[in-house]
């Protein structure tokens, strides 16, 4: 009898230990996948934050720039920089033939002319002198310098020629190649050239979309939640609405994209590819999330607070506005941020309303065409050039950073401002 009891007890302990083990291995698996994912993204992406520059001596010859020795500001603006730019690249190899000169030119980005121009605009006294100028290396050489380029492939399978590699190696040996923090990744809009592509357009596009989304979804959702929770009679009709709000939260986002396409663009003729349309579409998606969060936090306000206010002779409106809503705000706000974070990561609806278009300008308002961060990831991931591989990961890092900050914010609001009641 006693022995039986002991066996039973041991069995129960073993079952508990097994159960714990299952739980621990589940958590371990989850952490493992997360670590692999993050490691992969960081190891591919971190190089995108560095950019390779070639340091090339440029002779600012007034004659070649077609200006006189003491040019005005306008003259400098309008001067011809192409020839001196071309010449400084060609001068890297005195014996280069025409084809090789062409190859030398392609070692830098097509912005080289502009980079040289900026140099002299900053310091007009350079006229007639020679100065070493930092020129953005082409994306392929950038990858060569970062060690990501398969140099041992046969020449006809590479975009970088043996000649370019030879000159590049000479420059490296002379210390004329430098790697610096890639500011243009954050300040440039998208480009077909990987070395010049940046996230400024998609970042601003995301910000504008989220703001439009917030301005539409938040007031509508909060008012809907307050009405449903505090004022609406509980009957079959409101039950029906509640069920459908929950259903709405489960609708695939691409359906909202179709709605945006069919209604906002086709019927209301709002400007295509803009954060305005993107934001409205996303707000439809965020609406149910915020309503559900707001209702949950209104429900969490103890009824005793409402009773206390009502018993003091407060009207229902006063009870709601003075007590219930302020107490529910932390929960509502953190729910809103979570909803916005979801919207921030949304790609499919934005593709449908045209925010996938190639945009090489930085939007100044929600009415200007723009991309958004997740769509930018999609666009770059589709590009064949090697230089975009690291950019995809870097853009993912920026998006994830953004999301982490938002979620952190939601947590802080929830913990810091939530009132404790006895």
């Amino acid at each position, binding site marked *: 009898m006693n022995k039986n009891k002991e066996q039973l007890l041991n069995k129960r302990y073993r079952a508990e230990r097994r159960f714990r083990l299952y739980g621990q291995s589940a958590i371990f698996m989850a952490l493992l996948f997360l670590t692999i994912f993050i490691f992969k993204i960081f190891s591919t992406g971190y190089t995108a934050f560095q950019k390779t520059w070639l340091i090339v001596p440029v002779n600012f010859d007034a004659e070649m720039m077609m200006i006189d020795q003491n040019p005005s500001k306008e003259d400098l603006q309008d001067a011809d920089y192409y020839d001196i730019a071309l010449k400084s690249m060609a001068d890297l190899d005195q014996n280069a033939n025409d084809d090789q000169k062409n190859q030398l030119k392609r070692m830098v980005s097509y912005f080289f002319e502009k980079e040289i121009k900026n140099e002299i605009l900053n310091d007009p006294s350079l006229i007639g002198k020679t100065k070493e100028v930092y020129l953005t290396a082409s994306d392929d050489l950038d990858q060569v310098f970062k060690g990501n380029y398969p140099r041992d492939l046969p020449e006809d399978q590479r975009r970088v020629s043996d000649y370019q590699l030879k000159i590049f190696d000479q420059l490296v040996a002379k210390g004329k190649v430098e790697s610096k923090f890639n500011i243009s990744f954050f300040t440039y809009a998208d480009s077909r050239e990987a070395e010049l592509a940046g996230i400024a357009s998609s970042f601003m596009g995301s910000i504008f979309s989220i703001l439009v989304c917030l301005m539409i979804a938040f007031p509508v959702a909060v008012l809907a939640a307050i009405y449903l929770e505090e004022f609406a009679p509980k009957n079959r009709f409101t039950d029906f609405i509640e069920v459908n709000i929950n259903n709405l939260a489960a609708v695939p986002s691409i359906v909202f994209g179709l709605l945006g396409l069919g209604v906002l663009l086709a019927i209301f003729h709002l400007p295509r590819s803009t954060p305005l349309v993107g934001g409205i579409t996303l707000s439809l998606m965020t609406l149910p999330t915020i309503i559900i969060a707001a209702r949950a936090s209104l429900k969490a306000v103890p009824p005793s607070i409402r*009773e206390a206010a009502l*018993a003091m002779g407060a009207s229902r409106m006063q009870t709601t506005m003075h007590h219930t809503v302020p107490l529910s705000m932390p929960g509502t706000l953190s729910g809103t941020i979570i909803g916005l974070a979801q919207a921030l990561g949304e790609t499919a609806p934005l593709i449908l309303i045209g925010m996938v278009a190639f945009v090489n300008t930085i939007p100044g308002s929600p009415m200007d065409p723009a991309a958004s961060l997740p769509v930018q990831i999609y666009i770059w991931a589709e590009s064949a050039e090697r230089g975009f591989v690291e950019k995809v990961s870097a853009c993912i890092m920026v998006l994830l950073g953004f999301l982490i900050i938002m979620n952190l914010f939601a947590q802080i609001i929830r913990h810091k401002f939530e009132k*404790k009641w006895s």
Partner: protein
Amino acid sequence: MIKIKAKDVDVFYGKKQALYNISLDIEENQVTALIGPSGCGKSTFLRCLNRMNDVIDICNVKGEILINDFNINDKSCDVVRLREKIGMVFQKPNPFPKTLYENVSYGPTIHGMAQSKQEMDEIVETSLKKAALWEEVKDRLHEPGTGLSGGQQQRLCIARAISVRPEVILMDEPCSALDPIATAQIEELIDELKKEHTIIIVTHSMAQAARVSQNTGFFHLGHLIEHGPTDKIFKNPDNTKTQDYITGRFG
């Protein structure tokens, strides 16, 4: 003098009837205790008196309740005005999660009872003094009301209730969440308050009813079995059920 006159009050929760034909007179400036076993309807009756049952969708109140000869169940009765006249203290202390000052000044603010900051300060001070809480909290009026002890919180709720100078104060088991010392303080307070207010108190403790009340009503299964002066109910009840409950044979 009769302050409140309930005539044939029936209360339904959906289809379920919770109160049957309650007729009860309540004397002005006296304490009336409502006693009875759990679920007998005494709290439901109490909540009829300031129409707090309106909050419950499925609750339906029939019959007349006359306060100062005015039927509060009439359509023309404004609940906001009514609740200004009839204050309420709940079973569990429920101060607003705001400062002590804001808790007490809330009622006077929404009813526009103070013209200036000084007047409001005065109302807060007198209310807290009447609730015998002033000495304990006068230095921390701007700290949260939820930081007080249970007994202090309940006295804060009483101060809040009397801040709008109601004619009647309803108390729904105000001491059930408190320790004996806090209970004694509240009971003393009730004795003091009855000079200016008519008090109706629902209580589970028969000893408490005997200590604080002048009149007692005994509820059982939704019926008002017996009511009358407390002395009589406790010493010489007419009904055997009352007798059984008082002597602890059930309940």
